[in-house]
């Protein structure tokens, strides 16, 4: 079974490279064309954030590609990477900056340092870049979405939003923003059209989001964690929002004290992680599954084309691990030692 999976994988890799070859005008644009980019968060205060590159055939990993290319340290606490055309925008939360690089060569283009306080995610819509920012993470009323001019790389406007804007998605120029809540808590998904903000109420601390194949929005809410028994704990949930009318269509709530923190989507199937377990769920399910498909340490997770990419941050003070699983068998196919605290996987 495993052999079969690897064989099919290699076959698809060959197909991919063939299709590249078929286009004579496409020169390799840089050493990191194709393959995976792994964002390593690093540990706070230690300035050891980094990006790793896994070759398209999964044969090798190169760590520290930003530093290798540009001979300087990336920064402190890498939160996310956003892409626009041939550029990658690496958001460094604690360093409070965005490093702009050529996504294929990783050569530095510029660094955006002005206009952020605690930047989180980067996304391009309507030919402008949007950066979610927590402001002072303890202050519930200074949060904003910064609008970045992609020609001048400067923040040209901000849209005030409620506490802790996190991940963003764009549907036909309309932005959906999950509000994880900063160092406090929040329970909304903002919908931004132009500069108008409306809010959809969901469970507490919405984090991971995706659009399904029919264009509806799925939101993973972590719930508020309080184990003191004082009643502060609120249930996590997977919430489906119809993007036709921006109304909540379905809520699947977790048991108390069981807080999910990862969710990804591939081939009409939802995968979510809670308490060191990963579950698989059909789109039309009306109850949450109880039997995990995987167990282990999962700090980040991304499903794509029949494969599941998970990251293990181990102790956040040593090299982490990227593991790649087959989504049919859940056999692990590959494992790589990454930088410190790998969180996110991007396809380059």
């Amino acid at each position: 079974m495993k052999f079969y999976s690897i064989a099919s994988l290699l076959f698809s890799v060959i197909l991919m490279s063939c299709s590249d070859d078929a286009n004579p005008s496409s020169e390799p644009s840089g050493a990191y064309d194709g393959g995976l980019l792994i964002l390593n968060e690093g540990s706070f205060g230690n300035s050891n954030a980094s990006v790793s590159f896994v070759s398209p055939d999964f044969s090798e990993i190169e760590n520290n590609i930003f530093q290798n290319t540009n001979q300087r340290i990336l920064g402190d606490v890498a939160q996310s990477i956003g892409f626009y055309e041939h550029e990658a925008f690496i958001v460094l939360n604690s360093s409070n900056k965005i490093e702009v690089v050529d996504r294929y060569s990783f050569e530095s283009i510029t660094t955006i340092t002005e206009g952020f306080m605690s930047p989180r995610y980067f996304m391009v819509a309507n030919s402008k870049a949007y950066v979610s920012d927590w402001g002072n993470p303890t202050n519930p009323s200074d949060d904003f979405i910064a609008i970045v001019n992609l020609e001048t790389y400067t923040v040209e406007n901000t849209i005030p939003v409620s506490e802790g804007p996190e991940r963003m998605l764009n549907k036909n120029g309309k932005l959906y923003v999950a509000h994880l809540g900063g160092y406090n808590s929040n329970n909304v998904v903002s919908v931004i059209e132009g500069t108008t903000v409306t809010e959809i109420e969901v469970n507490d601390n919405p984090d991971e989001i995706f659009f399904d194949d029919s264009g509806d929005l799925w939101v993973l809410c972590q719930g508020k964690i309080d184990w003191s028994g004082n009643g502060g704990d609120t249930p996590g949930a997977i919430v489906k929002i119809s993007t036709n009318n921006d109304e909540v269509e379905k809520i699947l709530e977790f048991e108390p004290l069981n807080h999910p923190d990862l969710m990804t989507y591939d081939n009409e199937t939802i995968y979510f992680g809670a308490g060191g377990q990963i579950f698989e769920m059909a789109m039309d399910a009306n109850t949450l599954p109880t039997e995990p498909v995987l167990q282990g340490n999962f700090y980040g997770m991304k499903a794509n084309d029949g494969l599941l990419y998970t990251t293990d941050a181990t102790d956040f003070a040593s090299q982490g691990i990227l593991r790649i699983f087959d989504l049919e068998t859940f056999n692990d196919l590959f494992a790589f030692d990454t930088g410190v605290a790998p969180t996110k996987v991007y396809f380059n």
Partner: protein
Amino acid sequence: MMKKLFFLLFFAFFLKATGQNDSITYLDEVVLSDIKLHENSDGFKVLKISDSTISRNGKSLTDLLRFNSNIYFKENGNGMVSSVAFRGTGAAQTAVIWNGININSSINGQTDFNTIYTAGYDNILVRSGGGSVLYGSGAIGGSVHLNNSFRFTKHFDKEFKTAYGSYNSLENHLGFSYGTTELNLKVDAGFVKSDNDYPYLGTSRKNVNGEYENLNLNVNFGIFLNSKNVLKFYHNTFLGDRNFSGGLFFEGNDKYIAENSRSLLEWQQKGENYRSTFRFAQVFEYYQFFLDKNSSDFSFGKTNEWIGQYNFRYSFSSAIKIDAQLEYSSTNGTGSNVDSVERNVLSGVLLYSHTLGEKFKYGLQLRKEFANDYESPLLFAFDTNFSVSENYNLKFNLSRNFRMPSFNDLYWETGGNNDLKPETSWQAEIGQEYKFNSFLLSLNGFLIKSTDLIKWIPNGNMWFPENVSEVNVYGFETGINYESKVAGGNFLASGNYSYTISKNGITDRFLMYVPKNKFTGSLAYSYQNISVFYQSLFTDQVFTTTDESAVLEGYSISNIGVSFKFLKQKKINFEVLFKLNNIYNQKYQVTAGRPMPPRNFETQLTLNF
């Protein structure tokens, strides 16, 4: 094994039974605050930092000990949070003892060495090796002692010191001591501030948000009630206001306010064969942490500890002494992330010391604690000191020590684990001291095995503390001291080298931020009223990850200074000191990403009258 060794030493004693007696006189018992450090540490290495060294080495305990002991400091940028690795152990495994009272934070188990103002103490000592029987939780790698002493003679001394240095660093210190043969009152106030905005060498940037200012007050009062009874009172208040600088890769914007106070009342009665000591102490700790220094939002932690202690020491003969001690302490804690919690500990200590002839001493020490929130093992220590000859001294100690779980470990709102056990540790040490002519040489080898170490383990976004880690440390320390008259002046040279292998017992990897090699050295020469000194520090590279995948380079830095004394100028003694730190302008980092200051100067004027 131990038995064999014991007999060996015993036998050796009978072969050579002559020598000196350095028993403690009654006056020592009265003037010193922590007499057990002298009476019950014969088999341990105790380093005393001299007054002149204290006054030459900045204002914080980090600066002082970094250059003058084997201790390694992990300082988060100059003047910022400073934690310690003593003989390869962790930050919570060194106890800081204020006049005999353990002042490590109940909240996180550690002491930030940049929150201790050194000029407020009469003597500072470093006791290497396990000391949990005497000093309780955390005395695993060793303990650092901040002591005040009294002077029962007729005097009225006043001192004023003012210092100014690079980066707008300022220190003012005012102290007086008034004494008669019956009483002594000492008051000592210090104020320190610095912009701490030094440039980062090789960049166009400087240290931002590193400002600090501290206010320190010590009040000590001792009085003979009659020839047998002495009452002593000690007090220290430290108020610190610091911003936390970030470093090369992020700008700090946070602020930390610390308010610590300690008070101790001691009543000591001395009979012919006994000494009875009643001590009553309060240790208060409060901090506020502002993630945004401009905001009024902060998180805080607060603890208040009351300690009642009774100690009875009985001398069966001049050779055999027994100490029995009972202590009860009650600590209340509260904070932003910890509900109101209370810890009550009853502890009993038994110390036996025996001097055989005049050359061989040994001690046996036991401690048992009963606490409401952790189970403590029976702790013990055995130590011997054998004067092989007038010039050669052998020491040995073996001990079992512990570190209790902190309030954060036990009660942190999400993750705190009520079932934690204390960390426990075994250790053994052999030391030798050799004197000849003007040389004093020492060599100490040690082994420390710590188990049940508390480690916070991540699970998704959550962290949970568990007793899962083990650390094995071994190493040695050598010291050399040379003092002699040269060309009519006094020449003093000293060097300390330590070799430390500290590994995680489970992964067999080196611990982060523990250098394998550390060297400190100093040279001083004084001629009449002029003194010059030079001090050097070498610290080896350290790993910055737990799997040895990343390294921070080592560094070597040196300071030079000169002082002039002007005696009895209108009844005032002046001393002027000029010091240049980091003379070779080395670019170095103690923690990754946080550069330390380049070459900088300090000037100091001291008036005694």
